[in-house]
């Protein structure tokens, strides 16, 4: 227990000090926070509940559009803003900007959760690969449809409000970094708290055998919907911050970016280890470092690398880093290992 407190304190101190120690990497660190949030939210559903989704990008993109729309729409007419050059005609004062962003984030978190609750009953009745493909369809459909809606910029995109001139030049980066870091800590603690309750056991029961869970008297549908809503809530938050950070929203390339973010979140969770608390965090960190290295040195080949990476991870490394560690050091994970049993298993292999 003591060890854990030291670990958490170390991570917290690192997180707070990071933008000042590595000022050049502020944007990268913010993106890392967002990626970790996405991996954790995917893991709630894909890892713990066993409902592998490609569609959480829907909530991410929804949050992104909602946050920006609310931030603009609270003070200025949205349609004129998105018509082109709106960000030059209307200027947010600092108070308006922060007020709008705060309200926008709240909306960006709550509305996706409500949407997940509304569509949950229909979609979560599907199982296995039908669910995966259905959510893939949802994500792509959302991207295609939002690309045709005039008021949020249609095909030409949506410029989010520029950061007001307050403080030093570094203020923008620091603001978004701390936003994403705080949300990350909040997400992690919330998910950790959830995982220590009966709720996690129910989710695991659904993953292991849904019919049996139902036969045991668990209202599986209720828990599945709640699980998806939790996932959507944090996904929307992450999307809202990412929209402000990137500064520009495009329907298929930034918001509903199934080819990048939508795959990344699955990949990160699998790389780290599905169904563990720390797996997605580790997976996202490793993935982000690898990605940045690769993206920089092999510009243009990133999707080729991504494709190969997916295939390799899925085929040769489906248990992920945590799964591998668990197999190697089962004692550390609180598993009681019988020596004789282990020997017998080795012989069997």
């Amino acid at each position, binding site marked *: 227990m003591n060890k854990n407190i030291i670990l958490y304190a170390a991570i917290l101190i690192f997180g707070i000090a990071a933008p000042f120690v590595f000022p050049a990497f502020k944007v990268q660190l913010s993106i890392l926070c967002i990626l970790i949030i996405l991996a954790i939210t995917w893991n709630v559903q894909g890892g713990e509940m066993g409902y*592998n989704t490609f569609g959480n990008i829907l909530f991410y993109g929804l949050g992104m559009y909602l946050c920006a729309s609310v931030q603009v729409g609270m003070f200025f007419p949205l349609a004129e803003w998105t018509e082109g050059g709106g960000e030059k005609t209307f200027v947010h004062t600092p108070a308006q900007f922060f007020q709008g962003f705060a309200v926008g984030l709240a909306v960006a978190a709550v509305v996706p959760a409500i949407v997940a609750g509304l569509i949950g009953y*229909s*979609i979560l*009745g*599907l*199982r*296995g*690969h*039908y669910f*995966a*493909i*259905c959510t*893939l*369809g*949802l994500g*792509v*459909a959302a*991207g*295609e*449809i939002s*690309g*045709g809606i005039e008021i949020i910029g249609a*095909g030409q995109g949506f410029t989010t409000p520029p950061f007001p001139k307050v403080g030093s030049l570094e203020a923008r980066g620091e603001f978004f970094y701390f936003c994403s870091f705080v949300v990350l800590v909040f997400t992690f603690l919330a998910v950790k708290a959830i995982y220590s309750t009966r709720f996690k056991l129910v989710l695991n029961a659904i993953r292991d055998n849904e019919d049996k869970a139902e036969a045991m008297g668990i209202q599986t549908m209720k828990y599945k919907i709640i699980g998806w809503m939790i996932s959507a809530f944090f996904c929307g938050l992450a999307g809202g911050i990412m929209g402000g950070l990137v500064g520009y929203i495009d329907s298929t390339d930034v918001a509903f970016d199934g*080819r990048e973010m939508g*795959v990344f979140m*699955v990949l990160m969770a*699998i790389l780290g280890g599905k169904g563990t608390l720390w797996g997605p965090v580790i997976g996202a960190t490793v993935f982000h470092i690898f990605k940045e290295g690769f993206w920089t040195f092999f510009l*243009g*080949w990133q*999707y*080729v690398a*991504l*494709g*190969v*990476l*997916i*295939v390799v991870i*899925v*085929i040769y490394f*489906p248990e992920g880093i945590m799964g591998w560690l668990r197999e190697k050091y089962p004692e550390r994970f609180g598993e009681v290992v019988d020596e004789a049993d282990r020997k017998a298993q080795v012989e069997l292999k």
Partner: protein
Amino acid sequence: MDFLIFQVPMLTVQAVLDGLLLGILFALIAYGMALQWGVMNIINIAQGDLVILGGYIAYFMYLYGIHPAWGVIVSPIIMYFVGVIIYKLVINKVVDRDLFISILATFGISILFMQLMNFAFGADVVLANSGYGTTMLFDNSVTLPNSKIFSAFISIVFAIGLVIYMKKSKLGRAIRATAQNARAAKILGVDTEKVYAATFGINAALCGVAGALISITFTIHPYMGLPYTIRSFMIVIVAGLGNLPGVAMSGMGLGVFEEFADYILGTEFRIGSVFLLLVLILVYRRFKLSKKREYLK
């Protein structure tokens, strides 16, 4: 929105004819998907990218001065080997694993293919011009490119050929036996590994034919693969595995739906409406089955 299609009734005929001819192509792709799904229990997300790759083969023949219609013969031969290579490298490691693994692995292949095609052929929308001209019907109010009629005809020929092949040939019988019960087929001396490779190859070859036809009739682009995957998936779940007339019917139905969506909602919502239709169909089937306390599996 002005619904032009309701003001000009001839456009309805146009849309239906276009949709039917397009739908036959979809059915051909969906047939390949149903084949591999039934035999190997794999959902191939890279299906659409195989189609596009097949299309680029025909397009390249066109660039080098060969009539692109020959692509209908060359493309499946090349694509067969591409399919077998993909099987040997990736698919045979995911055949008997969790379905999600196969979806994710083929998703990786799909991204890989998309980008490699983008490098190799460029990001332009291209079309192999067959120079077949057009047929005018009903006082020139309905135009029908001959290439579309050609492609529908070729698709039907290939589909019928494949059905006969599956019924009569030794390999076809082995494939059907493996689909029914892989273990029993193995006991009876069928080399299932070979059957799987051949199935994936045949699927890729079908995609090659469809791709070559699409490059003649419509346009191809490296990133256009995923909609074809989704369409074929949709057709298969509507028709059910191993229901060939059903595949043809629902393929044509989808084609007509798309043409009407194009006229009524506008071209920018065409792909979106396809994906939305998939979601609606799945949800509909889920509610229908849940009345019987069952679920899609």
